[in-house]
């Protein structure tokens, strides 16, 4: 994956579309070539599998993690930290925002609309066609419209992340990518990439969109090699 020229990159999408994994992988990649990188965990709706869960791992790579602190981090309270506004205002800081799922989760992003419209940014809609509400072009279009409406911002690109977890096949990814590309054509939006598990990235060959190789960061305990 090639870093975007825009300083602010925002990941939105339906619940469970893979926003957090893509945002984390993008952030980790970005930290290899940029001095100052921050990730904002703006997920106010999911209690588990969030960016903040691997805060230590990210900080060890010099990444600033912007998320509620102390016990508030594990409370089901919709807390937005003031640091987000400050981070967006820092011209040297690369900011990745991992937004909560569905229009409900995107509502929190709407709070930063006034600041964001004056900042060059990418607002990427992450799509997994194996998820129940974004299986087809209609579902994707509905999700896109609803998220734009609650975020008060315009999506700038689609990011395919078509997978069935451990049962992902090349066929699953390719047929999913077709649907995402069709949605892109209909909505007049570019498909900026396709998330592919690193183990499968070698097998998939060339794609009509850039490949984003993914190393899964948030695994259930029986699949984790080290406890975080």
């Amino acid at each position, binding site marked *: 994956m090639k870093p975007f020229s825009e300083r602010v990159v925002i990941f939105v999408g339906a*619940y*469970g579309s893979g926003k957090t994994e893509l945002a984390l992988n993008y952030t980790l990649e970005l930290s290899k070539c940029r001095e100052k990188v921050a990730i904002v965990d703006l997920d106010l709706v*999911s*209690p*588990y*599998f969030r960016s903040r869960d691997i805060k230590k791992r990210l900080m060890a790579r010099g990444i600033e993690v912007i998320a509620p602190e102390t016990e508030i981090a*594990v*409370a*089901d309270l919709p807390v937005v930290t003031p640091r987000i506004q400050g981070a967006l205002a820092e011209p040297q800081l690369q900011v990745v925002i991992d937004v909560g799922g569905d229009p409900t989760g995107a509502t929190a992003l709407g709070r930063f609309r006034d600041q964001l419209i004056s900042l060059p940014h990418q607002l990427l809609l992450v799509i*997994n066609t*194996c*998820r*129940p*509400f974004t*299986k087809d072009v209609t579902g994707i279009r509905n999700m896109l419209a609803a998220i734009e409406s609650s975020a008060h911002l315009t999506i700038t690109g689609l990011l395919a992340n078509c*997978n*069935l*977890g*451990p*049962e992902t096949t090349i066929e699953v990814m390719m047929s999913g990518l077709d649907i995402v590309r069709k949605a892109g054509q209909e909505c007049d939006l570019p498909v900026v990439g396709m998330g592919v598990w690193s183990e499968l990235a070698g097998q998939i060959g060339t794609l009509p969109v850039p490949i984003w190789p993914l190393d899964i960061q948030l695994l*259930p*305990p*029986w*699949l*984790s090699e080290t*406890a975080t």
Partner: protein
Amino acid sequence: MSEKLLMKGNEALGEAAVQAGCRLYFAYPITPQSELPEYLSKRMPEVGAVFLQAESEVAAINMVYGAAGTGARVMTSSSSPGISLKQEGLSYIAAAELPCVVVNMSRGGPGLGSIQPAQGDYFQATKGGGHGDYHLLVLAPASVQEIVDLTTLAFDLADKYRNPVMIMGDGLLGQMMEPVTFPSEGSRELQPKPWATTGKTKDREKNVVHSLELLPERLEAHNIKLQRKYAQMEQAEKRWEEYLADDAEIVLVAYGTVARICRSAVDAAREKGIKAGLFRPISLWPYPSEALAKLTPIAKCFLCVEMNTGQMVEDVRLALEGRRPVHFYGRTGGMVPAPEEVLAQIEKLVAGRCEA
């Protein structure tokens, strides 16, 4: 919906309920199961069904009580503190012999506790919870696909025995995503329910749903009848799974999320040449005691692993009747044991020759 989807446990449970014919759902939100009401709030209107967010868990369970009386397939869900609030209603529903499905995606306790996964509600689920002599059928899935399969089964068992069935998960099972398929639709021919309060017709006596039985003789007779039913459940509804247990000298006993962790630990132990195996109860009540006891000729000891302080140990000891030592390892408060921690316990037992 026969294609494969990637779903969270909570969502998959909701979809499985819809496909099992659940047309009434009453609940109050609580983390970490709120994706379930959220999913059903979108899905139930699509099939012309009722989604109702009640004013409290107490209200929700009593709505379930009323709706179940009509013979409809009905469900409620919550997480630990919310399930505590439902206990009075569950006792009433069990007493009135009504079918319903109750989901507990449990979290850290006691008290308001934490929103992280835990299994501290084992006693509550399997030993009563509410007042009086009654039992719930309790099913404990360990994967998102099994959540789907057991939800379908739960509705069938509830109807078969006219008894509440609990699906006992934990926050992690509710939140994690795995690929799932749903059983093909069209196979949902539900049995008639002549006892349901659907309006008296001329050709039958009136049906009455109640849990009040003032005459001691009649209440005792009712208790005897219920006990007969529970005995039938104990005969027919024990479920479990074994993994490398046949030749295991150390048998881990775990359910739900922890069973997945223990499976990894068993694999790691086998790689080190330790004969470890796993016994996973799927029905927590009735408990698959006989199947567990059958492992004793080869097993030298048993290790219970739970996200609580050892609530299932009692059932394991009762099953083994003192023939083998039963050890325990657990984490609480929302801490989830890592496979390496469990492996360390196995190695410790091997070093001490499995003795107490």
